[in-house]
């Protein structure tokens, strides 16, 4: 405190001194004003003196005023500034304002810095700065790409909204349509109700409606008759069917009969189509009870349509035989009791499209047998009537026969002409044929003159066959590894079926010669009406008889009795038998107008050794025939001459 007081005192003194000094200065100025001459000199010297002393005083004062504490420090600073000045560094230029004053004050005593120059060799390297490659890179994209996430969501939303709206619209529309449809339906229903009874009657009685019903129901019935269920599910457990007994029996597949058409008629012939294995044709004689109906009738049946025939053909006389043309699927040929040959076309109506004339040019007697010979390009129809006239025809020209031949035999009873009831050509043979006659003989005949023999029946050769009319004659068909085409079988009203070996066709005998059968099958207890070899099994043939039995013989198994004997239907006599071309089915026609179709099944499939075995069987038969009595006694020769073919 005392120091402070002292200091204050000192300051007061100084102030006083200052005031005094200012007073002095003013006085001296006034003085100098009065003496300008002196003043210039004094100005030259005095200001420097006075200003320097005055400034020192001011500096001291200011330093004191700013802070007593810093007074020492400022003093040292001023010293240091002086020192730095002597160093000649330029750093001194950056100084506090207080120092500037000191510098400016101390500038006077600074020694001048004299630079010393020297030459220096310098090499200047110019390094280019390391280049930094900088470029701006941009990818060209659409703005949407980057903007996508958001708009997509938006779009989705919009879409769903739109879809919802559309759906709503659609529903509304649908509802409207539904309404419309319902209304329409209601209208239609009203319309349908409007179809009056009269209109219905008109439609029902129109011809085109009848045609439509006829055709469409046929199609539907065929579809309904499909035995195979194509939707069958084999994963479902079925009841085991017992097939064991099926191996050795025949099954009745279907029966064709039309109550309206076939009443009081007998089946006179059955024949399968070669082209369509499901079709068969059957011919009928007249219905004595119905005078207005046509006498003759030919029906084409389909195994897939059992209720009614596919086609109905009419004739003015009883039809005795009917067959499909072997080479035209559409043509059906029939022969009649009046001697006419008729040709029907399935594309035409029920009346024949072609017929032979009822004159001496053609047949004038009943034609019981017809056959087609030849090939696709050159074929003829051969027919033989009971007056012994053989005619050959071209199917598209029935106006007159291509050739005629009288079949005569000198030893024939009554007339020379033989009454032919049946005939047959061996396989591949078109000129030589064998005829069965009403009195029981079988003759060989030739269509043309040959070296050493005339056309007609070979007079010397006689197959002293049966004690009654020959009803059927059939040559062994040509198939399989061994040729049995020289074998033929005949059936007769003498209750027998006989197996023959045809004499060589080449040279007729010069002396009368009687040929004996290889074997006689005498199992039947009535007339045997027809016989036919199986087209697939070499040792198998079928026969039908007056007791209504359908007999199936397998000569490899048994020669005494048939392997199968069944009596279909009412048990009335069976007239005809015919094999389907594959041999899997056989059709039989009955006198009461039914056609029964049998499924032969497994038996129709021959084993590979059946042919050789049959050869053995035949040779055994021939051997036993030679050792045994040549002509076996017929069991019942009863009614050979009084037999009439038309029952």
């Amino acid at each position, binding site marked *: 405190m005392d120091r402070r007081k002292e200091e204050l005192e000192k300051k007061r003194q100084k102030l006083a001194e200052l005031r005094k000094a200012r007073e002095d200065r003013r006085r001296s100025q006034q003085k100098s004003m009065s003496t300008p001459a002196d003043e210039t000199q004094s100005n030259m010297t005095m200001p420097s003196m006075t200003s320097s002393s005055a400034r020192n005083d001011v500096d001291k004062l200011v330093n004191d005023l700013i802070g007593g504490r810093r007074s020492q420090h400022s003093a040292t600073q001023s010293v240091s500034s002086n020192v730095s000045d002597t160093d000649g560094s330029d750093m001194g230029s950056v100084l506090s304002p207080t120092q500037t004053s000191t510098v400016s004050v101390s500038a006077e005593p600074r020694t001048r810095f004299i630079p010393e120059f020297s030459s220096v060799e310098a090499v200047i390297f110019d390094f280019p700065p390391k280049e930094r490659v900088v470029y701006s890179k941009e990818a060209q994209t659409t703005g949407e790409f980057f903007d996508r996430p958001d708009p997509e969501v938006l779009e989705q939303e919009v879409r769903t909204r739109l879809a919802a709206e559309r759906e709503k619209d659609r529903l509304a529309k649908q509802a409207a349509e539904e309404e419309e449809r319902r209304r329409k339906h209601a209208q*239609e229903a009203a319309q349908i109700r409007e179809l009056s009874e009269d209109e219905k009657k008109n*439609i029902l009685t129109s011809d085109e409606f009848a045609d439509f019903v006829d055709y469409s129901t046929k199609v539907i019935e065929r579809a309904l008759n499909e035995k195979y269920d194509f939707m069958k599910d084999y994963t479902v457990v079925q009841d085991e069917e017992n097939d064991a007994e099926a191996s050795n029996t025949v099954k009745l597949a279907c029966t064709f009969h039309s109550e309206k058409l076939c009443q009081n008629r007998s089946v006179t012939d059955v024949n399968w189509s070669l082209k369509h294995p499901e079709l068969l044709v059957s011919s009928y004689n007249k219905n004595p009870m119905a005078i207005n109906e046509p006498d003759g009738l030919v029906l084409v049946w389909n195994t897939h349509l059992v209720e009614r025939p596919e086609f109905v053909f009419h004739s003015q006389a009883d039809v005795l035989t009917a067959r499909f043309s072997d080479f035209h699927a559409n043509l059906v040929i029939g022969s009649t009791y009046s001697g006419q040959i008729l040709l029907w076309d399935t594309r035409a109506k029920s009346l024949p499209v072609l017929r032979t004339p009822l004159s001496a040019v053609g047949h004038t007697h009943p034609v019981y047998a017809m056959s087609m010979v030849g090939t696709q390009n050159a074929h003829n129809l051969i027919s033989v009537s009971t007056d012994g006239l053989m005619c050959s025809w071209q199917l598209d020209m029935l106006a007159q026969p291509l050739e005629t031949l009288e079949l005569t035999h000198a030893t024939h009873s009554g007339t020379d002409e033989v009454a032919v009831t049946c005939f047959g050509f061996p396989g591949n043979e078109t000129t030589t044929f064998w005829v069965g006659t009403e009195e029981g003989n079988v003759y060989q005949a030739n269509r043309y003159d040959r070296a050493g023999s005339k056309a007609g029946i070979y007079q010397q050769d006689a197959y002293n066959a049966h004690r009654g009319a020959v009803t059927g004659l059939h040559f062994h068909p040509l198939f399989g590894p061994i040729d049995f085409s020289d074998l033929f079988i005949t059936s007769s009203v003498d209750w027998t079926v006989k197996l023959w070996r045809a004499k060589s066709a080449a040279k007729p005998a010069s002396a009368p010669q009687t040929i004996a059968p290889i074997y006689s099958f005498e199992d039947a207890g009535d007339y045997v009406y027809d016989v036919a070899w199986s087209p697939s099994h070499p040792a198998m043939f079928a026969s039908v008889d007056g007791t209504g039995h359908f007999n199936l013989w397998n000569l490899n198994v048994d020669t005494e009795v048939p392997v199968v004997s069944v009596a279909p239907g009412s048990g009335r006599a069976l007239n005809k038998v015919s094999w389907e071309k594959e041999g899997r089915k056989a059709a039989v026609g009955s006198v009461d107008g039914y056609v029964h179709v049998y499924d032969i099944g497994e038996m129709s499939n021959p084993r590979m050794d059946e042919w050789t075995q049959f050869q053995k069987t035949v040779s055994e038969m021939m051997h036993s025939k030679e050792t045994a009595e040549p002509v076996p006694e017929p069991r019942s020769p009863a009614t050979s001459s009084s037999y009439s073919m038309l029952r």
Partner: protein
Amino acid sequence: MAASVAATLNRLATRKGVHGVVILNRQGMAIRSTLPADLTRQYAHLLNALVVQARNTVRDLDSDGQNELTFMRIRTKKHEIMVAPNHDYLLIVVQNPQEQFQP
């Protein structure tokens, strides 16, 4: 003529497995039916529409546009519908195949 038509249809209708026979004309009006009236109406509308559609489909599928529907068979779980159309009429038969194939 009408008698034979009736006989044929009767035979068809009385077959085993056959439920009904309906005949329509070109406009889908029932001419004959063995089904009850309401069912007949239903069959007539719906099947006629279907047949028209099928006819068009068959025709359009053909390159010449000359093809024609001749028979249509619809197998369902419950039964089978068979349709035999011609230019003027339509025969519909409804059957149950299971019944038919039962021995």
